[in-house]
């Protein structure tokens, strides 16, 4: 019964996708909205990476919503993993003694940590010029913290600086949007001068917004990793 239901659901979806995709030939030009973005993107926003122009200028309100979704996921994970409060003393006694990582992994992780953080900063600062941006840079920063957790057993992340960073980054995004509303008449208006193409200080508010998103995503994903590592109570 269960297999029959599964296969009929799959067959329905295959038939539906095949019927709809047969009208969408692969690799043909069918852009309508995007032609406007491609033609006017650099003049409107100053960002030469047009994906960034779509994410942070034409669709910036959606990006605010997506960052909020990520924040809610991180919040829910923190609530679920800390909900049945264990007694602090018993948890410390019941913890197994974990074997320490080898010397190469420990020292290597401590050596690589600042370099990976720097690389993440490079990715989100250059988001309007090269591939990359806040989401990718934040993931790279969270990977650096993950490397520290994997390499050092005694490593603990203080949660207060993470929360402060995340809140300040979110407030920066909203305040920049509200200043745009006051200056130009609509939310997230690009009110700073566009600058010249291909230079770091160009594209108006887009580097500021992408730095805020990078710090916020990095803090949220680091918080997720820290919560997963620190709840060692089940087994």
């Amino acid at each position: 019964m269960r297999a029959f239901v599964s296969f009929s659901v799959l067959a329905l979806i295959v038939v539906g996708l095949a019927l709809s995709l047969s009208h969408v030939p692969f690799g043909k030009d069918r852009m309508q909205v995007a032609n406007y973005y491609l033609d006017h993107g650099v003049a409107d926003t100053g960002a030469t990476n047009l994906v960034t122009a779509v994410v942070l200028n034409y669709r910036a309100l959606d990006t605010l919503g997506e960052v909020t979704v990520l924040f809610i996921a991180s919040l829910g994970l923190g609530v679920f993993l800390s909900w049945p409060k264990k007694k602090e003393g018993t948890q410390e006694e019941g913890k197994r003694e974990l074997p320490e990582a080898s010397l190469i992994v420990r020292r290597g992780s401590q050596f690589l940590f600042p370099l990976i953080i720097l690389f993440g900063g490079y990715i989100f600062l250059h988001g309007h010029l090269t591939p990359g941006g806040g989401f990718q840079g934040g993931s790279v920063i969270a990977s650096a913290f993950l490397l520290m957790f994997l390499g050092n057993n005694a490593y603990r992340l203080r949660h207060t600086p993470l929360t402060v960073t995340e809140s300040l980054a979110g407030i920066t995004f909203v305040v920049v949007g509200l200043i745009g509303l006051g200056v130009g008449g609509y939310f997230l208006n690009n009110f700073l001068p566009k600058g010249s193409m291909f230079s770091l200080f160009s594209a108006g508010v887009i580097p500021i917004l992408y730095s805020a998103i990078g710090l916020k995503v990095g803090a949220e994903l680091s918080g997720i990793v820290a919560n997963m590592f620190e709840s060692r109570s089940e087994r």
Partner: protein
Amino acid sequence: MTTGNPMMYVGAVGLIMIGLFTVLSKRNLIKIIVGLTLLDTGVNLLLVAIGYIHNRTAPILTQAHADPSKMVDPVPQALVLTAIVIGLGVTALALALAIRVYGHYKTLDTRKIRGLKW
């Protein structure tokens, strides 16, 4: 360049099917979440494949490539970019739920968890 045409769609739809079949037929909660990750990747691949146009390059202007009429559609890429990061958040949330379920029932088998079997 034409022989690769249906292959991208076949790959994306096949990945969606594998992920969905894992979600529907497996009984281990961690395996179900693995299936959700596969499903996520397949949907992202399908969206980007729909936005692709032959013989065009990525929508990033440089000094050597400054012609916007030679670029692919940036809108699906912008959508998928955020969907990938949110997929990680959703996966982590589902894994936290699975860990809590294991702490309560001492099993991950959906047949033995009250209220989860179908």
